[in-house]
């Protein structure tokens, strides 16, 4: 018991340090929990206590730890944590600010579903547990709603979104619209940063090439003069806060860059007069960079459904639906384009597409795993599925209309959770939203905190580069995305000619292709991922893989070097990327076709015990043939099971045990722990009680 107390104390210590959403920290905590399942009760108690007692702003990260543990480790934590989940959750919920509540509702939503990409179809927590909370939440919201006007001024409640009075906020675009568009262009598409602006507030420029068109039917935008002074003030506020941030986290390499960019921007603002639409852009960006909402929670290391959200909504639409009614006037376009790089490329263009019901999560997941996108309704998987790793960032798609919007009006307060849930579905059609949900909604799904500033920086430096020359560069709208694609022509600054002279020229700008193109770094091994939807999924799978290989039993098992494979095997061998979706696809198809292990597909690793190695199957007296098993990365005996320290042919044993009316010794499917997709059927060694 003393050891239990010790582990619990260590866990508590680690929890104390968790003051923001740091994915590595949460991963570590999950790992601790995973490696100490025997002390699950003590750890669960610590976690509950911590969530109850810690300061409100630190509760959410702790809840993410809880979430990560139940999804990645599963039982027995689900049992211990489930017991008191209602209290834990509601206590925290009542103390939270509305923004964080959203995130919590998002969590709750995922708890009602199976672990993403898991073979287990049961929800994370049993429905009784979640239903109680759900009921309480409905009650809570009803009460809260009664005291509030129809449109609660949510944005004022969001911490860290200051300056609500700054002029550009008062664009005529009504908030109702805002929410809607925000949904259509889920900001997570390309930017995991919470500061993405709702699209309804997309700066109405004087010559709006793209975005004003869509607004037209609803709310014609009116250019508003920008208060440059106010802008400067807020810019310095941003700078100050960034400096503070830097002082606190000197380790964040992106911050100095960001600061530099900010100073550059300040310089420009002080020295140049920018056209109003550019000011709008700048203003918006600054506003978004203002100290963000509550500490952004990292994605739980498990594959999480929300991450599937970020599909470029644009692609399926025929280009013809993009109305290019405006001549490509020079000024606004560039900035708009730039803007598009930093954030979802899709300007809000309502199209006559019929409203679509958001497909269910399961459907979407399946669609993902099968890779089939053709049947997908209006919004579907697309550009991301082309070369997944091309050196350039995924093509910024041609501005195309986003998804339809004609969703029925919904009582904004009553159904937040549902709406939230829709966000967490891939390519969900945007429902009508209460004002301002977007920046909040994607909070829980943000990756580690580092990528965020990186993007800012990139955007800003892009902006800085372009601003002075903007007037002289009439870039056609479509050319921008094109130039982002890699093409080996000499005009392309990315092209390096293969000659000794050319190789010697320094090209510092290219280095960003190694770093900023993949802003999402794995803290454990340094592998980088794109900040796209797909990148996040890959990273989630990658993190799962890290968990998987952290095997506490390794030392006991006596691992050894495997034999090298033969020429023929090597030629036919294909590398397995732990982050590639194929594994999931395999697992998914495995579920479909073979829910139970077929006896002859069972295998065990060739035993290390010499007595066993040479022992034949006690039933048929035949010897076992070792063969290479790619998935297990080892030589295995196929069609073998180990029963009471003897090894039998699985088929022999099955026959035998059936004959003697014994229960067939089927290896239990994920009793504990391992609830991950990679846990394919057919991998006997992975079934192990933690």
């Amino acid at each position, binding site marked *: 018991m003393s050891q239990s107390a010790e582990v619990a104390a*260590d*866990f508590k*210590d*680690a929890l104390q*340090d968790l003051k923001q959403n740091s994915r590595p*920290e949460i991963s570590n905590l999950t790992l*601790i929990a995973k490696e100490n399942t025997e002390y699950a009760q003590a750890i669960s108690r610590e976690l509950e206590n911590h969530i109850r007692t810690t300061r409100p702003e630190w509760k959410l990260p702790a809840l993410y730890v809880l979430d990560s543990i139940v999804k990645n480790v599963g039982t027995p934590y689900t049992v211990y944590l489930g017991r008191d989940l209602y209290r834990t959750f509601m206590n925290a919920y009542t103390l939270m600010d509305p923004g964080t509540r959203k995130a919590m509702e998002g969590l709750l939503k995922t708890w009602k579903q199976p672990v993403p990409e898991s073979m287990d179809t049961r929800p994370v927590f049993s429905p009784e547990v979640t239903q109680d909370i759900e009921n309480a939440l409905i009650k809570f919201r009803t009460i809260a709603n009664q005291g509030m006007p129809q449109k609660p001024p949510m944005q004022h409640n969001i911490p860290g979104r200051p300056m609500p009075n700054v002029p550009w906020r008062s664009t005529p675009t009504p908030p109702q619209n805002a929410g809607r568009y925000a949904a259509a262009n889920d900001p997570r598409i390309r930017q995991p940063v919470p500061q993405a602006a709702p699209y309804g507030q997309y700066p109405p420029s004087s010559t709006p090439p793209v975005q004003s068109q869509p607004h037209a039917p609803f709310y014609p935008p009116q250019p508003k003069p920008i208060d440059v002074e106010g802008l400067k003030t807020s810019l310095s506020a941003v700078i100050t806060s960034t400096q503070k941030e830097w002082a606190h986290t*000197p*380790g964040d*390499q992106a911050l100095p*860059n960001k600061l530099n960019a900010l100073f550059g921007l300040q310089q420009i603002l002080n020295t140049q007069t920018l056209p109003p639409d550019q000011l709008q852009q700048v203003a918006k960006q600054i506003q978004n960079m203002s100290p963000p909402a509550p500490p952004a929670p990292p994605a739980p290391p498990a594959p999480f459904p929300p991450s599937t959200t970020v599909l470029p909504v644009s692609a399926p639409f025929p280009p013809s639906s993009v109305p290019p009614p405006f001549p490509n006037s020079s000024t606004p376009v560039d900035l708009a384009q730039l803007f598009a790089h930093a954030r979802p490329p899709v300007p809000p263009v309502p199209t006559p597409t019929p409203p679509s019901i958001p497909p269910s999560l399961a459907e979407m997941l399946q669609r993902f795993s099968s890779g089939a996108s053709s049947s997908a309704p209006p919004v579907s998987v697309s550009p991301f599925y082309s070369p997944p790793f091309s050196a350039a960032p995924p093509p910024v798609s041609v501005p195309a209309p986003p998804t339809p919007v004609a969703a029925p009006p919904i009582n904004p307060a009553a159904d937040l959770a549902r709406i939230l849930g829709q966000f967490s579905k891939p390519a969900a059609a945007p429902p009508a939203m209460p004002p301002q949900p977007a920046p909040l909604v994607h909070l829980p799904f943000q990756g580690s905190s580092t990528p965020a500033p990186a993007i800012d920086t990139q955007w800003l430096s892009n902006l800085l580069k372009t601003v002075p020359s903007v007037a002289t560069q009439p870039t056609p709208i479509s050319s921008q995305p094109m130039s982002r694609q890699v*093409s*080996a022509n000499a005009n392309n600054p*990315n*092209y*390096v000619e*293969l*000659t*000794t002279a050319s*190789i*010697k020229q*320094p090209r*510092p700008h*290219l*280095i960003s292709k190694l*770093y900023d193109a993949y802003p999402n*770094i794995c*803290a*454990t*091994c*340094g*592998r980088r991922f794109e900040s796209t939807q797909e990148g996040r999924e890959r990273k989630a799978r990658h993190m799962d893989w*890290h968990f998987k*290989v*952290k095997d506490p039993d*390794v*030392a006991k*098992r*006596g*691992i*050894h*070097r*495997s*034999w*090298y*494979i*033969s*020429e023929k095997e*090597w*030629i036919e*061998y294909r*590398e*397995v990327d*732990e982050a590639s979706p194929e594994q999931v696809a395999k697992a998914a198809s495995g579920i479909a076709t073979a829910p139970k292990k077929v006896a002859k597909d069972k295998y065990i690793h*060739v035993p*290390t015990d010499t007595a066993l*190695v040479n022992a034949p199957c006690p039933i048929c007296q035949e010897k076992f043939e070792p063969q290479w098993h790619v998935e297990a*990365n*080892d*030589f295995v005996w196929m069609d073998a099971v180990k029963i009471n320290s003897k090894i039998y042919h699985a088929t022999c044993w099955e026959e035998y045990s059936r004959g003697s009316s014994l229960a067939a010794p089927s290896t239990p499917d994920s009793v504990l722990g391992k609830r991950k997709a990679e846990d394919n059927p057919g991998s006997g060694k992975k079934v192990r009680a933690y």
Partner: protein
Amino acid sequence: MVSLPGLHLTATALEPANPAETTQTRSQDLLPCSEYRFEVPFTRSLTIRLLSGTAEFFGTELAPSSTYAFTGTKGAVYTWRGCRLEIGGLAESEYTSEETQMSSYANAHFALEGLRDRSMQTGEPGPRVLVVGPENAGKTSVVRILTAYAVKSGRQPVVVNLDPRQGMLSVPGSFTAAAFSSIVDVEDGWGSSPISGPSPIPVKMPLVYHYGLASAEDGATFKPLVTRMALAVTSRLEEDVPSRQAGFIIDTPGSVSQGKGGDYDHIDHIISEFSVSVLFVLGSERLYSDLSRKYSSRSHDEAVAVIRLDKSGGCVDRDEAYMKQLRQAQIRAYFFGHGDHTLAPHSHMADYDELNIFRVFDPASDPNAAFRPGNDDDDIFGTSTTIYEKVKPSTMIQNSLLAITMASANEPQEVIRDTSIQGYIYVADVDDVKKKVRLLSPQPGQTPSNALILGSFPEDLPGLVS
């Protein structure tokens, strides 16, 4: 072993070997585009942790929350954008330098990326890269950087090591090829070949041939093995689309670049067998001029782009003592694993007549072999029957390393030569009286009856099992 904050289980705490050194850490700031170069002997350990910024070790980025421990390494941590490192332990020598060749190496990578993109569009094979240069010019470092960058860019290049002096994913004396789809290990050279358990860094699946001699100029088996390797790699690339697009990168021993009177026989052979399209020449002006004269004039179809890369100032001469320790460390790692990831090899006895040992003719030790006719002739090597000499186990083989081929002992010698190997066993003990040998094998089980190749390189390693 990843350190878990809060549990106080840092990697440094786990190294009782030199606690006095590792308990003290210092921080080291690096300016953008500079590198921290260090040499750590095999007897010590140096830990590096990235505190802020970004940094890379031969192209592989250091993870922000991991502590890396280096032993017996001469390496450099480079930063493009500045960083702060936390360094623990004592290096033999260490300094920072702002004069590096990283910019041109990165350009080389981006030039290759252009070719890879073109390959994706056209379907033609990706860049086929050969890196040549004198000893200690940094060839392997460049290959590692190019590989790491390619992997980082989402490619899956095949890396071919033809340098017997140091093994890649295997022991020295071997030739290996492996496709890299996952990050290159930082602490452990190229990483690890598959083991029976999980590995914290994805393992790489190598194809291994045994050469068994120290230098490419020695012996008659270099060229046939290059041919064989080229065949295997080319076949793999036929079908493996990601690898075909990424192409391959060949690392070579310095000895092929010495040339005799401007004649670079082995380089020619490698270029023609692998259809090399890009040739990076490191360091040597003369080599560059000789090779570019020779290959730049070729017709368009088989044109080879010859590019000169400067030798990095960080390259240090590795003396024979260090190389020997490096070889021993690699052999040790093959059986016992690296660092915290220990492996459990198996020891068992075998009768003399169970072993079919073929010894590689080493012209260096066998003066008669040098006079064999047709030794240098391409056409002859296929028909020669005296590649190996069958030897009976004796105390001579004690402490040596035997390569287990995939061929049976009855096969012709050419077949044995051309076959890839399954692994290595180490002769721990020879009992001439009982006619038995004690073998150390990475895996349990019987000693295979396959042909075993005994090379003169790597040299005997006494006391691997003690």
